[in-house]
């Protein structure tokens, strides 16, 4: 077994919820005074009765967290906002201290908590590389050595001698990330670092992170990007309300987390016209997704052909109407967009009345995972008149028939069954 990198032993951290910043009037102060007085009496009464003195205005950001991390492990930390992820990283980086428990850290810790906070707007890019590097704990000689690499990675060569206050926010963030990404510590803390820059830069960051990960360093990776967590981490901890819910292999923990946070919504019905969602032009009556020929409650696997049904009232007869659906997967990637083609009703101004539209999605097309459907009504090819985000949510489960012995995550927004032919050419 490899060496211990970090041992977290029963740490807890409590925060007081105070209203210090609130504007107070004299009257408020007086009423607060009298109520504090009463609470105090009340508390001492409770204490004398043997009850513990629990402050109602405190929250446990972390409660009794314990785990070990070994050299070279890439630990993903996931959970809702406020689950305690950032507090945990702050304790590991010694910015704040636990109220109970103990952490042992073997090695230097570098953190990339919100990159760029060490920048000074009046200094140039070049000066800020040195400043930020020093703040992150790099020696001057280390920075000298990596200077060119940092500059090339950031892509701001031409603006190096300009004060960073004149940088665009993108340049600012890229330079900051570049400095932080070249930190050479045994343990690295990453908090939502992949959410910076444009897509090109994000790709570069991701591959940089893959390098870091493969270099055998110990990494703590906090992210809401489940795809990144799954592809980078070797182990995942799911925190909720300051406690560890699950600790285990990424696939397992991430899918448990996703299941808990997203409930399938395969059908929505509005029988009462006046309360149905929509506008003066169109109004929905029912939306549903179900396996073809079955009901909405049935299981959907990667092989199942699906029908998406929409029932709606059209209240306006003069205009062309268009309906489109957007299917996105759990990483927020759009798998595809579809609208009615070769469906004659849509090719003329749309008549008034109640309609049902069905969209058929063949089996063996979508990949596994949770999918959401967004609905859009467009008038005269131009004006978005109504749109309903996440109207439906459904999960496509795996099917062993398509697996051929490989059990990892199969990449891609879609996973279609395509026609292949292979023949032997030599005799």
């Amino acid at each position, binding site marked *: 077994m490899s*060496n211990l990198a970090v041992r977290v032993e029963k740490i807890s951290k409590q*925060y007081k919820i105070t209203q210090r910043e609130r504007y107070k009037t004299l009257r408020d102060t007086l009423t607060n005074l009298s109520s504090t007085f009463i609470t105090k009496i009340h508390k001492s009464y409770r204490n004398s009765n043997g009850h513990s003195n629990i402050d109602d205005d405190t929250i446990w950001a972390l409660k009794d967290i314990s785990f070990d991390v070994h050299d070279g492990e890439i630990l993903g930390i996931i959970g809702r906002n406020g689950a305690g992820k950032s507090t945990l990283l702050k*304790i590991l980086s010694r*910015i704040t*201290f636990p109220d*109970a428990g103990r*952490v042992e*850290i*073997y090695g230097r810790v570098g953190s990339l908590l919100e990159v760029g906070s060490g920048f000074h707007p009046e*200094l140039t890019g070049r000066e800020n590389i040195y400043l930020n590097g020093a703040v992150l704990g790099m020696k001057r000689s280390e920075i000298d050595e990596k200077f060119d690499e940092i500059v090339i990675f950031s892509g701001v060569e031409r603006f190096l001698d300009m004060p960073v206050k004149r940088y665009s926010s993108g340049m600012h963030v890229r330079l900051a990330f570049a400095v932080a990404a070249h930190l050479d510590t045994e343990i690295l803390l990453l908090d939502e670092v992949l959410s910076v820059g444009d897509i090109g830069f994000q790709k570069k960051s991701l591959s940089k992170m893959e390098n870091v990960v493969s270099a055998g360093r110990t990494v703590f990776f906090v992210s809401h990007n489940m795809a990144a967590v799954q592809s980078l981490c070797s182990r995942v901890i799911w925190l909720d309300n300051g406690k560890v819910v699950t600790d285990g292999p990424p696939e397992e923990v991430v899918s448990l987390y996703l299941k808990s946070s997203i409930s399938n919504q395969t059908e929505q019905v509005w029988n009462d016209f006046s309360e149905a969602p929509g506008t003066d032009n169109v109004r929905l009556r029912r939306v549903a997704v179900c396996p073809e020929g079955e009901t909405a409650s049935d299981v959907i696997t990667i092989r199942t052909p699906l029908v998406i049904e929409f029932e709606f009232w059209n209240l306006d007869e003069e205009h062309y109407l268009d309906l489109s659906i957007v299917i996105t997967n759990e990483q927020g990637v759009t798998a595809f967009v579809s609208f009615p083609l070769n469906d004659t009703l849509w090719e003329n101004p749309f008549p008034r009345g109640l309609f049902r539209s069905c969209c058929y999605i063949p089996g063996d097309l979508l990949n596994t995972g949770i999918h959401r459907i967004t609905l859009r009504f467009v008038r005269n090819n131009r004006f978005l008149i109504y749109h309903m985000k996440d109207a439906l949510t459904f999960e496509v489960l795996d099917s062993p028939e398509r697996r051929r012995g490989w059990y990892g995550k199969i990449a891609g927004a879609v996973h279609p069954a395509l026609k292949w032919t292979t023949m032997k050419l030599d005799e």
Partner: protein
Amino acid sequence: MKSTNLSKNPVTIVQPVKGFNALDLKELFQYRELLWVFIWREIKVRYKQTILGASWAVIQPFVTMVIFSIFFGRIVNVSSDDIPYPIFSYAALLPWTFFTNSLRLGSNSLITNSTLITKVYFPRLVLPASIVISGLLDFCISFIVLLGMMLFYGIYPGLEIFFFPLFLFQVVVVTLGAGIWLSALNVQYRDVRYVVPFLTQVWLFITPVIYPTSLLSGPMRVLYSLNPMVGVIEGFRWTLLGSIASGKIIFGMSALTSLILLASGLLYFRQVEKDFADVV
């Protein structure tokens, strides 16, 4: 199986901070490079986008000296112990300007760097310390003007000049002490922002910048020298201008209070430091 740890990596223990926190000199030494970087940043940034730049370091004490000389030297005719009033007040304004500027910037140093404090670990003392130390550059620039004035008035220091470094050291100690106190208090109580200008104003009147210590006598004078800046300014005048030394008691008392100010500041700072990131 329990994993063994044979790693050569340094071990850091993070646990609840309770009770007394001694000053961690070893850690401060480890972070000396960061201190230099902050000092360098401070110097680089201080006069950015100003027209007059570093000459502000001279303008401030010099203009004050001119005004003092006109009003107190000429009109009110304040005694200056037989030293020309302009150089008498300028020698005091040097440490005084260093002191007040450092307090003004130093008391805000933790607040203005709050984004750093909540994101990265380093000994927080580095921040107020870097402000005070970087102020020494301004001090040196304005000191050149004093040398010019000494030539002009034909005042040359005697052997006392060898004691000058002591008083320079003392003003750094006093400024660090007060700066550390105020910066730490400012994290918790933003009242400090209003207190500092007021404090330095009041402090000016109980410090012999405008007038000589010889105006006071007996027990008043001893009480007066509890103010650590009294010893500093008396020391500056004595070692540089050869004014009459105000006696061992005054120097001793104010040296003592200077050290107490610094020691208590460090102590207080260390006790509240752990909460900075949560409070700031």
